[in-house]
């Protein structure tokens, strides 16, 4: 019996979101913890996977699927699930993870549960699970009856924890049986816009909301983000007003973040925004309104005008560097 986890790579290492999924996979109690990696054999991060308790790594060499092709990836997973007699196949609840598992659900005709926080085998073909609705503002208790449980793991609510003892890992190369239609949709990749840390993986995010007042108000937030080695994120009103591009939006319809620190400036804290930042380890709010809902989710708060507090903070941090 085995449980298979799709591993996305972030450079040479497994993406943190995939390690979180792997941490949940290990709790399913099967004897074999398998992973599926779409990469050259030489590029499989065996050391780190073994430290997460992975006993078998199945490699789909990129030549056979030509980069990221969601339906082809799902077809390969379906073949492997049959070959290994998998009782569950899971992935991180990322754009790719949810997409590939949706294809796998369609290919196999089985249900798929997106963004689970807890999965427990309950005998036979039954799994009990808890999953996100409303981007995590609500939890759904559900029961899945299926010969293979298909699900993705909510990336902001399960921590990545390595195994107590590393596993002895074996690497197997799998050649998928693909139909021509599986390869019709393929990603052609090119560098996107400006580089820099991405919002989803940033260690510090400086957030700006309606209180910033307009596009020019973000200069001091940018300075602060740079000093803290972080990036700027914004609330939905900021993108609807066109002050900042949508890719900087934190929230249910934007990006979910998991930084060490989220510094929310001039953000009242609508629940759709909280859905995006609840995965932050620490939240500090700077707000003129001591009754703002964000204060109920923050660890610390400064009551005041961000246009005064942030420049003063920037100055204090610069003085500290000198």
């Amino acid at each position, binding site marked *: 019996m085995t449980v298979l986890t799709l591993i996305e790579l*972030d450079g040479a290492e497994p*993406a943190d979101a995939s390690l979180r999924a792997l941490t949940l996979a290990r709790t399913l109690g099967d004897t074999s913890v398998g992973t599926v990696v779409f990469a050259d054999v030489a590029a499989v991060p065996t050391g780190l996977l073994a430290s997460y308790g992975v006993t078998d790594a199945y490699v789909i060499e990129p030549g056979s699927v030509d980069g990221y092709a*969601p339906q082809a990836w799902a077809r390969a997973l379906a073949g492997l699930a049959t070959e290994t007699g998998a009782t569950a196949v899971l992935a991180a*609840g990322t754009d790719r993870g*949810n*997409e590939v598992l*949706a294809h796998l*659900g*369609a290919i196999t005709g089985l*249900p*798929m549960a*997106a963004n689970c926080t807890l999965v427990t085998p309950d005998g036979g073909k039954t799994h009990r699970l808890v999953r996100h*609705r*409303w*981007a995590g*503002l*609500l*939890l*759904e208790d*559900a029961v*899945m009856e299926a010969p293979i449980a298909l699900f993705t793991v909510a990336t902001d609510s399960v921590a990545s924890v390595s195994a107590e003892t590393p596993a002895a890992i074996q690497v197997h190369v799998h050649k998928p049986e693909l139909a021509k*239609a599986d390869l*019709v*949709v393929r*990603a*052609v*990749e*090119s*560098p*996107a816009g400006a*580089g820099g840390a*991405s919002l989803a993986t940033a260690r510090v995010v400086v957030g700006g909301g309606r209180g910033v007042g307009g596009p020019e108000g973000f200069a001091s937030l940018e300075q602060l983000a740079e000093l*803290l*080695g972080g990036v700027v994120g914004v609330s939905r009103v900021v993108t*609807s007003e066109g002050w900042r*591009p949508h*890719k900087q*939006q934190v929230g*249910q*319809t*934007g990006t979910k973040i998991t930084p*060490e620190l989220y510094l929310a400036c001039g953000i009242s804290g*609508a*629940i*759709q925004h909280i859905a995006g930042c609840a995965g932050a380890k*620490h939240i*500090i709010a700077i707000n003129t309104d001591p009754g703002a809902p964000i*204060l*109920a*989710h923050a*660890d610390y*708060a*400064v*009551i*005041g005008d961000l246009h*005064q*507090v942030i420049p*003063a903070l920037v100055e*204090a941090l610069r003085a*500290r560097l000198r």
Partner: protein
Amino acid sequence: MEILVCIKRVPTVGGKIAVTPDGQEIDTRASGFSISPHEECAVEEAVQITERDGGSVSVLTLGPEAAIEQLRGALALGAHRAVLLETDGREFGPIATAAAIAAEVRAHPYDLVLLGNEAADTGDYQVGVRLAHELGWPVATGIKNLSVGDGGVVARREYRGVEEAYSLPLPAVVTVKEGINLPRYPSLPGRLRAKRAAVDRSAPEWAGEGLRKEALRVPESSKHQAEVLGSGVDAVPGLVRVLEEMGVLS
């Protein structure tokens, strides 16, 4: 270009979310309803495409009679025809939803079906993909930029700081995300037209699925009131100390 846009009626949740005593639904006694945000952008995208290249936009929803409100909302934004797949109020799972939409698509010569990447409420992330498999069409998901060319579309999204471009032959299914455009406000003539428009109806069969909802609940909140460090610039020294303790200063 004949485009079908699938939308969903969802509660407009504001500052708080609550569940009915039986744990089966969101308590909507105090809330209104709206089109799920990604899908409002799908309607806008379809209207922009047909304004530029000609054709027509049909808008579909699977839901109760009351969801006609959201269909009329989409008509007011510029959609031309509305289809209600009427339910008896029971929640359709993603497999049954995709099957019901596929039946509508097979009955009309659509070139493109647009959906939201995921519904705001159930967040299943799969109806568009399952629909494409039902139809044997290609699909791209999570799209933030769409361009239409001869016989195909190029759909773009970002992944870990890299832009991914997908070329899809038509007919195709594309699921979009907020940010692909900024939806317009409905015009007055648009609203009047929407009010009078006919709505095509059918009632698909409900079917159970292998994933069964037992109950909904609000997560046990880690809610606590923030410790106030002070007011205005006087709070800055305390703030720096807290940042030091958190280990975010190099």
